[in-house]
């Protein structure tokens, strides 16, 4: 399936349960919200009650965490079926998941486990991506994950791996600049090398998030404010790349909503004025 580029729709926030009521009450200046797809694999109740109202006012993007596209187990079609039903109900602008594996057979780690950067993994992912996209009848955007180890088996760098996957499938990526930063620190490479190596047309979305620094290594906890270095990487990338859909991702240790809005406004302040699609001033 050929992937078409998504238009620039601005700056989004991750939609999390604790903010539902405040969003409806205050109608914040957010261009779009990203939901965690699996949180809506339920029949009803609060999640759908609030999403139905929020999606009347904001475009929605779907981001999955459990597809396990890199797994060598058989493709989980019952998962894909739930995803498809949710897609039909939400009508998202686009959908994404992670370039990783999470489950194997009956075991689910609920973590985003890295793939080895090998020829074998490339052909495996190429095949799986085609099957998934055919089944869903739409492109699937893949996010780079943070990693804490390098495999002996890897034959290329992560950015070479992503670029080659794009060459073979035309798939697009959701680049999480924090994840790149985390992996760069843990594996001692320059994050700019990664960011500059991915073909421009292969990038569909950006995630910005925070992490926890343990000195010897850092962990992608998504529970802290975005660090200065990640902001700088984003600023440089944005200047070079031009308008790109960008989102602040917070998954834990939720601050008051206005703090996330301040981060979103900071992201807006780092890009040229010409990016603006809504005049929120």
């Amino acid at each position: 399936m050929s992937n078409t580029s998504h238009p620039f729709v601005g700056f989004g926030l991750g939609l999390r349960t604790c903010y539902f009521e405040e969003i409806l009450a205050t109608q914040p200046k957010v261009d779009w919200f990203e939901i965690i797809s699996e949180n809506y694999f339920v029949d009803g109740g609060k999640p759908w009650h609030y999403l139905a109202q929020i999606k009347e006012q904001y475009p929605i993007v779907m981001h999955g965490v459990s597809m396990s596209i890199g797994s060598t187990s058989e493709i989980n079609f019952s998962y894909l079926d739930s995803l498809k039903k949710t897609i039909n109900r939400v009508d998202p602008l686009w959908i994404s998941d992670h370039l990783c594996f999470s489950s194997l057979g009956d075991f689910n780690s609920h973590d985003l486990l890295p793939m080895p950067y090998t020829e074998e993994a490339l052909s495996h992912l190429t095949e799986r991506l085609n099957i998934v996209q055919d089944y869903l009848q739409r492109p699937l955007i893949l996010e780079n994950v943070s990693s804490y180890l390098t495999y002996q088996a890897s034959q290329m760098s992560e950015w070479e791996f992503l670029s080659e996957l794009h060459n073979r499938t035309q798939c697009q990526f959701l680049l999480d600049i924090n994840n790149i930063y985390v992996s760069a620190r843990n594996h001692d490479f320059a994050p700019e090398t990664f960011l500059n190596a991915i073909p421009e047309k292969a990038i569909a979305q950006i995630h910005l998030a925070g992490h926890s620094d343990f000195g010897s290594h850092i962990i992608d906890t998504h529970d802290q404010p975005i660090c200065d270095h990640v902001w700088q990487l984003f600023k440089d990338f944005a200047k070079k790349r031009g308008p790109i859909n960008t989102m602040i991702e917070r998954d834990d240790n939720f601050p008051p909503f206005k703090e996330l809005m301040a981060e979103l406004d900071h992201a807006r302040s780092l890009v040229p004025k010409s990016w603006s699609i809504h005049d929120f001033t």
Partner: protein
Amino acid sequence: MTSLEQLQQDFVNMLNHGSMDFENHIAAQEGALAPTQRAEIYQNAYRIRLTKVLEQDHEMLGLYLGDELFDEMVKGYLARFPSSAPSLREFGDRLPQFLSEHQPFSEHGILKEIALFERLLLKAFDAGDSKTLQFAQLQSIEQANWPNIQFQLHESVYLLTCQFSAVESWQALKSDQSPPSPDIQSPHHWIIAREPDKRTGFYALSTCHYHCLTSMQNGLPFGFVCEAAAQYAESEEQGTMQVMELLQKGIELGWFKSDIRVQQA
């Protein structure tokens, strides 16, 4: 097995069983972390993530058990029932079973009941949203059809019978009080359901109302529900009154689906 399959299998065995064959796949890198420590980051993350799910889903059970026993429970549960579903919300589904089958938890029947009660609260939270029965609908039922009417319980309704003071203990812990003695004279019946404002509520049920609701759940029409009620009331008339009282309360609280059926004789 291909090398990718082997790598993934070893990774999973490391997380699930602590098997360190996986370390052979990790490249030695410059810097502060050895391969073992790199593997441990994933092991810790796995354990912490799933522990957190059980802590969040079973907050009062955690208070009832105390930290040490709760940790022992989590360890045992992870070993016995590792997560298999893509969604974390299903991870704890077999916790009541685990508590009833494993020492020392199985010696205290109340633990399984508290866990089950907490699971049902979670299930009610995001159950289906079908429309609820309204009073006006009752008025449109023809007199002659009443005995054959089948009322259906809403998807968010769960019934629970406890042999111990599980729900009372949950309530006490929730309001920072010490739980009562686990023993009770006779079983206590409960209904758990999502209320019209989408909050999850629960109510004590009389034995009569509990049996009315289970007979509705089993698809029995109104006439049979009244007969069931009569067994727990002083007279047939009293039984019917009990059912009417239950209908009134249940309509107010959204316990029934708006979709009512007339069973053809």
